[in-house]
Every structure is written in C-alpha cells, then in structure tokens.
C-alpha cells in the first residue's frame, strides 16, 4: 500500500512553515494550485468520475441486480459490450448489466474512500489536537500510544474484525478509517503545537474558556487546511485497501459491489474470453486513483512555500 508516512512527514513540515508565514499563504496556494496542470486535470477527472457515479444510473438501461437469464451461460458470445443491446459495458458472469454495476461499484468505492478518510480525519484530528494542546505528560503518553499502535499489523486485525463482526459496509468504513488515523494524529499534533502559542488561543485560555471548547473552536478550524490535504492523499489508499479486502472475499454484500470486487471477479475470468469484465471496472478504478493522486499532490505542492 502506497505511502503515507512520507506525505505525513512533509505535511508536518509544510504546516509549520505555513503557520509561520501567515494567512497570505493560502491565497498563494490557490493560485499555485490553479496553475498546476496535472492537478487541474485531476480535478476535472474527479468531476467526471463523480458525475458518472452520481448520474450513471440514469443512463443505464438495466438495474444493477437484474439478471438476464438468457445471457447467463452464453456470456462470451452474447454478453459483449454493445450499444444496441443497451449493455454498454457488456454483462458480468451472472448475466447482469456491467455498466450499472460499474456505476454502483464506483459509488461504493468512492464512499469507502471518502468516509474511511473522514473517520481517520475526525479521530486523528481530535486525538492529535488534544495531545498537542494538553502537552506535557498527557501528550507524551498519547503519542507513545500512537507509536505502539503503529507497529500493529492492522491489515491482519481488520481481516479478523471482518471475520468476527461479519462483513458490512459499516465495518469497512470503520476498519479502514481506524487503520489510518495514526498519521493524521501526528500531523494534527504537530500543527497544534504551533497554533497553541498564538495570541487568540492564549486570550481564550486566559478568559477561562474550557480547554475542550478551545480545541474545538480555535484549534481544529485552524488545522482544517492541512487536514483536508492529507485526507485527499488518503482517499486513494483507502480505495486500494478496499480492493484488497474485496479480493479476499470480505467486501460488500451482493448484489452491491465495489470496483475492487468487480476487478477481482474480472481478473479471475481474465483467461476466459470476457476481458471486458476486467477492463471497464479497472479503467474507473485507475482513473479515480489517478485523479485523487494528482489533486492531492497538487494541493500539497501548492501549500509548500518552498520554491521548486
């Protein structure tokens, strides 16, 4: 599974610089982002994929779970992608319309990616902000715990969790999110340390505002920028993660599907003359991940005040 640590390291650094240099940086960043061609292309792709996921079902000629029983065994010859039959992407191994299923798979994959990232962001930000704001021993202990958790092979734990609590989309969101909040916590803590000595925080503290309120009202909003950047980088990792889980057969329940599940099914039928079952979902998978990579990289570079 691709990088997050190095991204995390860099974001911690970037965050410090951003805070030191003040607000104008964010304005600069926007200009820089807009000028970044790859990032803009990524953004455009992202809109296309999102539109496909949201509105694709209106173009589809069939329901995602309806089986055409006349096609089921004759897939290789009659289930081919075709405009005439209305199966734009052909049919899957069970004789269902692949277009409708890719639409739905894209929805689920995006959802897993985004909600997984959201869980990581919420847990990680709060945890990091609390540790950073509290400082001292509390901070020490909390970050030690993060260090400890970092050495746990979470993929294995997630497999165990899915086995135990049964597969459900909720478990997937939770499990995938919980795997990746650790880096988020480190980033948030680093940022908090810088912010907490700012005047407005000290004023709030002096006027007797409760610490937790300070964290929510003053610290977290100031973390948002960097958190969003990290979240964008996290989404594709979550999607890749989900595909692995689907491959192991622990993904979402039929008739729901995800890009990972579709690809895994397509890959196992790869030698049997139904290659479209692999490449259509794969194209959307690759496009989605490309898009997030480009946008995430672009955002991070845009925030990085170092001239390059």
């Amino acid at each position, binding site marked *: 599974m691709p990088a997050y640590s190095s991204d995390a390291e860099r974001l911690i650094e970037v965050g410090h610089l951003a805070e030191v240099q003040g607000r104008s940086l964010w304005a600069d960043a926007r200009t820089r982002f807009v000028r970044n061609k790859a990032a803009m292309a990524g953004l455009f792709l992202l809109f296309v994929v999102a539109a496909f996921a949201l509105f694709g079902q209106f173009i589809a000629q069939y329901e995602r779970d309806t089986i055409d029983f006349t096609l089921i065994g004759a897939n290789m010859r009659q289930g081919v992608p075709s405009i005439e039959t209305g199966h734009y992407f052909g049919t899957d191994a*069970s004789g269902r319309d692949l277009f409708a299923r890719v639409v739905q798979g894209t929805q689920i994959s995006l959802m897993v990616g985004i909600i997984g990232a959201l869980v990581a962001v919420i847990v990680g930000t709060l945890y990091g902000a609390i540790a950073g704001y509290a400082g001292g021993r509390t901070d020490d202990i909390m970050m030690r715990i993060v260090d400890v958790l970092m050495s746990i092979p979470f993929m294995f734990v997630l497999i165990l969790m899915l086995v135990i609590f049964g597969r459900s989309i909720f478990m997937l969101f939770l499990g995938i999110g919980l795997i990746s909040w650790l880096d988020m916590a480190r980033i948030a803590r680093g940022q908090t340390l810088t912010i907490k000595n700012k005047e407005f925080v000290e004023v709030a503290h002096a006027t007797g505002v409760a610490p937790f309120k300070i964290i929510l009202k003053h610290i977290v909003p100031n973390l948002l920028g960097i958190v969003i950047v990290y979240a964008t980088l996290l989404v594709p990792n979550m999607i890749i993660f989900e595909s692995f889980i689907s491959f192991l*057969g622990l993904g979402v329940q039929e008739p729901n599907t995800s890009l990972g599940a579709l690809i895994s099914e397509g890959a196992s039928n790869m030698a049997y003359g139904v290659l479209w079952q692999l490449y259509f979902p794969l194209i959307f998978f690759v496009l989605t991940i490309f898009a997030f990579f480009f946008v995430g990289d672009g955002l991070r570079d845009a925030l990085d005040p170092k001239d390059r």
Partner: protein
Amino acid sequence: MTFTRRHLMASTAALMVLSGTTAIAQSEVPADANLAADQTFTYRVGDESPSIDPGKVEDVDGSDVVRDLFEGLYNQDADGNLVPGVALDHTVSDDGLTYTFNLREDAMWSNGEPVTAGDFVYAWKRAASPELASPYSWFIELMSIENASAVIAGEMEPDALGVTAIDDTTLEVKLSTPLPYFPQMLTHGTTFPVLQSNVEEFGDAWTQPGNMVSNGAYVLTELVPGERTVRERNEMYWDNENTTIERVVKLVVPDENVALTRYLAGELDRTDVPAGQFPRLSEEYPEQAISVPEACSYYYMFNLRENGPEELKDERVRNALSLAVDRDIIVDAVLAGGQKPAYYFSHWATAGFEEPEIAAASMTQEERNARAVELLEEAGYGSDNPLTIDLVYNTNESHKSVAIAVSQMWKQTLGVETTLSNQEWQTFLDARGSGDFDVARGGWCADYNEASTFLDLMQSGSGYNDSKYVNEEVDQLLADAKTSETPNEQYTQVEQIIAEEMPIIPIYHYAAVDMLSDQIENWPVNNFEQNWYSKDLYKIESE
C-alpha cells in the same frame, strides 16, 4: 478464491456384499500400451490437508494421499467394488457380530518388517483413544466396534476395544450390532494400519518424510506444507511389480483459475474445472474435460424453528419458493458442469435408489412459475404485501452465483425481496446451527453409498437437520427402512413427503468436474465415491 474444504465421504455401501474370493489385483496395463518414459502423476489440491496421519485424516485430499501411502484390509477397484488389500478374505459369524480376517503373509512395511494383525489392532485403538483426540474417532464408533463409544468417551481403556490379533495373520473384530456394510467401511483411512515402533519413535513427527514407515504402494519422500507433497514407489509393497506410476506429486494451488492456467501450460495432469467453464473446455479439450456424478446434493433449507420466521411456516410459501427456482438454468447456465437438476433430495446415482415420482419434476418451468405465483397469492403475499427473505450462504464463487441467480428468480417470478448474506465458513456454520437465518445453503455428501445417508437428515433428531424439520411419519418410515427388505419403498414415500412439505429445496445433484490429462489412463470414472489409487493408473506417451 474458496476456503471451504471438501469433507470426506466414508466409504460404506449397505447393498454390496463381499464375495470372499481372492480376486487378483486389477490395473492390468495392456501389453500394447505406449508407456511414457516419465511415470509422474501431478495433480492439484486447493489447500494443505490438516493431517496425513491415517488415524486423524479428515478431508478428501488427505485421504487420497493416505490411500496411496497405506493399505487397509480392503481396497476398491475402478467401479467401487471391494478387492483384497492386506486382507485376503474374511468370515462372519452367524450372528453377524464377529468378523475374522485372513491377512496376507507377504504384506510388508517400507522398512521390511511384515504387516501383522497387531498393526491393525494398534492403529484402531490409537484412532479411538482420547489421547490422540482424532476428529475422526467417531468413525470407529460408526463402525459399531464393541466398546468404541466407551473408549472414545474415556470410560474404558483403549485396550477394551473389540479388536484382537489371534495370530500375525488373523484379525478378529467384534461388533456391538450387526452391520451388513462393515467390510465396505474398511477402505477408509481411519482403519489403515500404522507401525507402533515407528509412531512411538518419532511421536508427532512420525508423519514427516524420512520418518514415516508405510505399507502402501508408495512412500512419502517430500512434504513442503502449502506447496507440495511427493510420494514415490514403495519397493517393499507386495504388489510392487504391478505398480506403474513411479512418482505422485500433489501441488497446493489455492486459486482454481491459476490451477487451470498451469494445467494448460502442462504443469499438472489433473485439476478442477472452475464453475461455468466446463462447456468451453469440453469443446476445446473433449478428451480431457470429464464430468462424473459425485455423491452430494445441493439444497436450500428453510428455518422451521419455533422462533423462526412466521412466513416460512406456511407450506404454500415454501412450495412457491421451490417451484420458482429454475433448476435447469442453474445446472445448464450457472454451473454448466454436468450437474443434474434436483427435485428430490437423495443423489440420483446412489446405489439401489429408484427415482421417486415428484409432480414438480414433470412440469415445465412456465407451469411451475404459474403455480408458484398462485400459491404465494393464496398465502396472502403480493405486490402490496411483499415477502422478504434473508438468504445465507458461505463464501465461494459458485455458491455466490447460485444465490444471485435464485434471488433473481424469486424476484422476477414472485416479487420476493431477498437479502443475500455471504458469510465465511465458520460464521456460516455458527449461524446455520443456531438458526440465525431464513433460508440457508446446504450441501450434503454421502457417508456411504445408500440413500439413507441423505434421508436420515430429515429425521427430527438428526444432528445435521439444521432446518429443525419435524415429521413423525418421516421418522417412522426411516426407522422402518433400516430393517426393511425393500427400503426403497420407504425412501420413495419420504421423498414425496418432503416434496409436499418442502422443508428444504433440493436444487441440484453434484458432479465432479475435472480436467484430466489424456496421458493418464485407468482413471476410475465409475467410482461413485471418487476413490482413486495411484498404483492403478498409468501414463502413456502423448501423441
């Protein structure tokens, strides 16, 4: 990917009676056969076997290995009939309780020691002992050997087991009840001999290559768990000169599609055909793709427990759901591997079983669908009051395909909403055993080649009756069948009651679908229990 293991079918057949004559071993290689220079047989399995210790072996793949390494009292020929193994013949006492086996004198262990009756005594006591805690110790109990239950329960010492060595070549077995198919059970791995001095010398490590001493046609020469198991000709075997295959390699290939690729690349001589691929393969490789009946039935069970779903307590609903399942589509299109549609539970090819007449079997699918709609309406379900069902199955590509197809048949024909729930094996067993389902997948493989092995599941007291179906008439009929001269009459009646009350939906009867290299000859395609012996095979040059 599949993670389920096929479970073992004990080989017993009530209706076969051993002649007691010493037929000479089979496997004659024709004189004009163009034998290949390299007599290596390589085949694929999906998972490493839990054990290849005869006392503990519990799965089909493990048993295939054990049958090559060890030899029990009897073997099976290509048609599943008994032929002499270590025993030449036996006599039965008039009360049917005492079996006396006459063992051959030339049987030897791979270290040159003779195989004696004492080796069997040791092996059987070991298999039953709580100390070994074999998951297959119940097999000794199933064989009705005297005191078996008490030994397994730890209430008696293993020495109390009703098996004695009269002398080196005479083995006496005492049963607690007469069991006409007792000799047929002796081809099963649990009854194979092991060498006491060998097991005691190495302890748990005795099954490692180099340590293991065996008495079969082959010896274990290499075992890399999760990768390969190699067995090679045993020079000490009494019928060594009639063994043709020199070396048998079992490769663990978890993914069946990968296995097929490797088969086509010539790395394997035998592999399973992935679901749905049989038509294409049999067209391209007519000599190699084979499909033969396999002694298992596939069905969906309803949860009929007190606290189960109310809707399913209505016979009409159950019948409607069964009628709406288009079995022809499932066997011809979804699985497409020579399986047969099932309207009754027992496998059609079971020995001595006559097909019962079931009304639904002779209808067309249109008629069945129309009747299903009628029944469901009568029961009060329709578009204003749709029926919803949870269907539980275990993780496996073909179970998934069948469940998807059935749920759509119910939806398209009856407007029933089905929630599919795919659970991995252990979770699934737990849910099914505790009644946490509406409809669940079931598959049952015969323990022996007779219809009661299937139908006993419908007994209200059966531990395997996960539907919790209770019908006293069925119980009575099944009890009667045990002592009946013509048990088939009772079986037919039971099947008809099941077809009316529909506690389960029979869907199809299994077929074993394999790719087998056209160089391998003498494969026992007519052995309903799929018991094969490498020593009976031979390999010819490819053309």
